[in-house]
């Protein structure tokens, strides 16, 4: 390595105030403005691989598709398997393959918005990549961010991933029908969420029995 020998008077410091997260945030704001213009609400679902994001979105689409125009943006690193049951219901779906990228960003969501007729869609479900860390830094332009955790991930998911919850507007605790078998306390998870953010709404659900799904649909429509 070549070392530069500079006397102190030749060294310059330029002061900047340049945010590295701002570029994405700006596009996210533009997405939001575009969606607002069409009276369309986007909801972003984040959660670990296997937390049940896809099944939850599929159940919500089933509930709401006859009441309003819905669409799904499905982020997946490589495959389109998650989107197939939704496409079978005749709901517009945009597959966003991040090719091993660990999160969606506002730019890909902007492109996805261009693929559907926003004037016919009131509600967009955005399924983020299965990851509880990276998506937190990248707002997409959604009106609410939902974190999905399931009891099968164990009792410490909330405290292990605080950043994800600090930026969320709704938390879904999924697979509650397995709580007893897993020996995980749903109330313990709810208490952890409220230690991080006392006013954050938490809804326990089971996509198997249907418990809590009407409450999630109502919470989404109320944002």
């Amino acid at each position, binding site marked *: 390595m070549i070392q530069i020998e500079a006397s102190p008077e030749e*060294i310059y410091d330029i002061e900047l105030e340049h945010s590295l*997260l701002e570029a994405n945030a700006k596009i996210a704001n533009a997405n939001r403005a575009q969606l607002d213009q069409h009276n369309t609400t986007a909801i972003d679902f984040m959660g670990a691989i296997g937390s049940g994001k896809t099944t939850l979105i599929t159940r919500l689409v089933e509930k709401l598709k006859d009441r309003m125009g819905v669409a799904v943006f499905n982020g997946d690193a490589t495959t389109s398997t998650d989107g197939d049951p939704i496409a079978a219901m005749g709901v517009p779906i945009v597959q966003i393959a991040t090719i091993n990228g660990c999160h969606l960003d506002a730019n890909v969501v902007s492109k996805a918005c261009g693929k559907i007729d926003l004037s016919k869609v009131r509600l967009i479900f955005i399924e983020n990549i299965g990851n509880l860390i990276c998506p937190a830094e990248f707002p997409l332009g959604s009106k609410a961010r939902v974190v999905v955790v399931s009891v099968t991930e164990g009792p410490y998911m909330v405290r*292990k991933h605080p950043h994800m919850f600090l930026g969320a507007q709704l938390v879904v605790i999924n697979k509650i029908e397995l709580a007893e078998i897993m020996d995980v306390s749903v109330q313990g998870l709810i208490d952890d969420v409220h230690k991080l953010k006392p006013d954050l709404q938490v809804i326990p659900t089971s996509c198997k029995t249907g418990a809590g799904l009407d409450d999630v649909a109502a919470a989404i429509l109320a944002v």
Partner: protein
Amino acid sequence: MHELSIASSLVESVLEFASQPPPKKVLKVLLQIGEFTCVEPEQLQFCYTAVIKETLIEGSTLEIERVSAEVACRHCGYAGPPKYWEDALSAAPVATLQCPTCGKATESTRGHDCTIRTIRYVES
């Protein structure tokens, strides 16, 4: 591994500055990372070194400074450092949005950004 996207965007900004006349050699970049972000300094350092290889700023160093979090409570008027969750099992106490005085929800007022503060360089 979002540190790679952040490092790429950091290097892009520094290269844009470095490539403008007069010719210069970048020595050090000072970056501030907020406590409410989940950007991992060590991983970012690693990515920075990898991304600057064979660029105009190869050989420059990255200095990372943590910016502590601050919150404001609209219920009781508190403003200042957040309440920390001490026994969350994590390596360091976790900054929360619970008000340290009244226990209700606060809003973060500082510590959620990742900002280039200074670029140190010599004209070459």
